[in-house]
């Protein structure tokens, strides 16, 4: 899944999502245009309720837009059947949620291997990949623990490993540090940093300035629309701790 820089990985044009009708009409996303290049990390910031999460759900095919178009890896996804959209989520997108959304009854390694099993990989291959990913996120020794036996930061790292299970083209993270303390936030930031270095395309929705500062590009959002866009020089590579001032 290697992609060269400057190649568009995710593109949205005139994207709108509306709820309700007439007087009670709410525009959660209102005419958003977005172009995310391969290997780029884009942070979308804004206050609670500004439509960030809704935008992420639309970009990842979890929800359907009211209007506008979305292209993911060159495929126009708006008119895709549910089945093809599911296949796209499985093979091309990795989600990281604020609430982790791990299966409570599955161990860390079982959670991480689940997307690969859903994609039809052999149990052995799925387990091998899951174990590698858990090692990569520093939880190799916690592989057989249930989510209830892990800290918040550890759970989020398991969720990130799960998002990477099928080597997605893009990872969409919705407030990935929203439920974490400072130390766990730093762990997750480091993880995103290493993903960025490895060329993984990332879109992170957050209201945390520290995590937004690690992106290549920062987009501000309010009332469903983009109001500002800032290109951050060089991203965070190698300077994360200093940048976010978390290493004490």
């Amino acid at each position, binding site marked *: 899944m290697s992609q060269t820089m400057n190649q568009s990985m995710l593109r949205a044009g005139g994207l709108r999502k509306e709820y309700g009708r007439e007087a009670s009409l709410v525009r959660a996303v209102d005419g958003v245009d977005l172009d995310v290049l391969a290997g780029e990390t884009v942070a979308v910031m804004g206050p609670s309720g500004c439509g960030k999460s809704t935008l992420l759900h639309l970009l990842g095919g979890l929800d359907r837009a009211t209007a506008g178009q979305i292209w993911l890896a060159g495929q126009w996804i708006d008119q895709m059947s549910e089945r093809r959209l599911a296949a796209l989520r499985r093979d091309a997108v990795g989600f990281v949620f604020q609430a982790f959304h791990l*299966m409570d009854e599955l161990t860390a390694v079982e959670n991480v291997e689940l997307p690969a099993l859903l994609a039809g990989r052999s149990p052995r291959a799925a387990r091998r990949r899951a174990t590698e990913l858990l090692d990569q996120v520093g939880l190799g020794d916690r592989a057989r623990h249930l989510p209830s036996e892990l800290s918040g930061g550890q759970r989020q790292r398991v969720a990130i490993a799960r998002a990477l299970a099928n080597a997605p083209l893009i990872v969409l993270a919705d407030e990935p540090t929203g439920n974490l303390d400072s130390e766990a936030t730093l762990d997750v930031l480091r993880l995103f940093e290493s993903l960025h270095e490895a060329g993984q395309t990332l879109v992170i929705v957050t209201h945390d300035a520290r995590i937004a500062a690690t992106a290549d590009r920062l987009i501000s959002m309010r009332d469903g629309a983009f109001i500002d866009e800032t290109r951050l020089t060089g991203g965070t590579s190698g300077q994360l701790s200093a940048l976010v001032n978390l290493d004490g």
Partner: protein
Amino acid sequence: MSRVWLVGRLAIRDLRHNLPHALLLLVAITVAMATLTLGLILHGVTARPYWQTRVATNGPDVVASSVGFAGPAGISAAALGRFDALAHAPGVTAHSGPYPVAWPVLRFGRVTADVMAEGRSPARAAVDQPDVVQGSWVRPGGVVVEREFADALGVHVGDRISLAGRRFRVVGIAVTAAVPVYSQVCFYGGCSGPPGARPSFDTGLVWLTEAVARSLGTAANPVTYYLNLRLAYPASAPAFVRAHQPPPGTGPLALTAWRSLRDAAATVVVQEQQVLLPASWLLGLLAMASVAVLAGGRMAAGDRRVGLLKAVGGTPALAAAVLLAEYLVIALGAAAAGLLTGRLVAPLLASPGASLVGGPGAVHLGGLTVLLVTAAAIAIAGVSTVVPAVRAARISAVAALAEVVRPPGRQDWLIRLSARLPVALLLGMRLATRRLRRPLLSCVSFAITGSAIVAVLIFHASVRGHAGQSGPEGPGDAQVSQLLLMLTVVFVLLAAVNVLAITWATVLDTRRFSAIVRSLGATRRQTTAGLTAAQLLPAFAGLLLAIPAGKQLYAAVQNGGPQASPSGWWLLVMVTGTLLAVAGLTAIPARIGARQPIAAVLTEA
């Protein structure tokens, strides 16, 4: 007192708020209680028709028969002498006979049947003068057919039948209290028949002239004799039988007291009771499963309510009491409805058949029946709601208000096994094992329904086995068959309610699970198939258990009677048909569940 009023008021309010749920429970328990009521109140309902027939026909107190003791040359002089001695024994006030009885084969159209053909005088007898309900009494060339037997054959006055190859016209239809009702004719006095033929279970009764009866006897199938006795004290009939019955094997007489004939008259109803009582317990278990499933499905909403109660000062006992009171109200309602339904349906099942005159009269609900049915209904509701009630008492107000989701269960080996299966089965197995109680209840529900169906299949196979293809259908078999059909429908409906309730509870409980797997790439079809598989797996296990359980159930109900094996094809049809029905039923709630937007579920979770 105010506390009781408060509990009652809260319970009634909640029931009104969840009316569909309460009605489903009411129906499930009512069905079981109506069946139990029927099983209990049918006891003894045929005594009255027997007495009416006995009065109408001058029925005997004791019947003596020489079946099994006639040689090729007919009955011996010694045996005839024994009949004479009996007729003049102390305590005997009147007698009729001994009448010659031949055992030919009757043919009517394509139907053949073994027959007890009793030779009678055209003159009226002092004891046992059959009551002619249609046509006339015996005359040369004419036979009178016992009414239930005539119904089974489809014979009417004026039809022609053949006996041992000789043609006769049916001149009358009659009933008697001297011979057990059809198809129990051979039950006490025994039966004879053509040599080499297998013993008949469904011998019918006809009357013809004595001369014709004697002429139908052959050396290989000789005539036997029947003597009817009236005693000064009918209550002394059992003692009279004990005093005059020769020791076994020393013949030549077999004596039967009137109480045995009365009991034989209840055969059809007893057969129904044999079906109804175990069916009521099985339906009770099924209802218990329904209550447990429905109560479990409302656990989250119930918790929130308990939290509110506790937050405003309610004690744990109050929270539990409200929950128990709700189900107590439903149980009492179901008991009342069940008793009423049973009382109304009972006359339809209380008919002893056409062998007797008169009807069973009013069926009464005894105090014991009311007590037993009410206790059973309360027990069903109570046992099924103990878990939610204890939980309501124990859960903290904060946890209850926060609707803390119970952690799902985990079975290591099933998770490992499911990883090797196709996605739908992987999801199905994992869904099924998250709340193990639910698939267990589903498995029990299908085991109960399936065992009832297997028992019905065995019944039909057994009836076909002993009646033969050309024989008439016994009245008991026909009535029991109808009853079984009705009960099977009830079993299937209750099982269907359980399937829908369990699937819907699973859909509600697994909204987050489904949304997560869909966000990871599972398709709607896969999650729907997973939910369906989660219902099919316990259903399949239950049906497999049902096959041996159904055989055991039939054996227990039959109490050692003949038992055939149901055809393998029918069992296959039952299993595949049930699984297809389950797949169809679960597809509806499963599809509704799969349509829920992923983003909305994950956002609210």
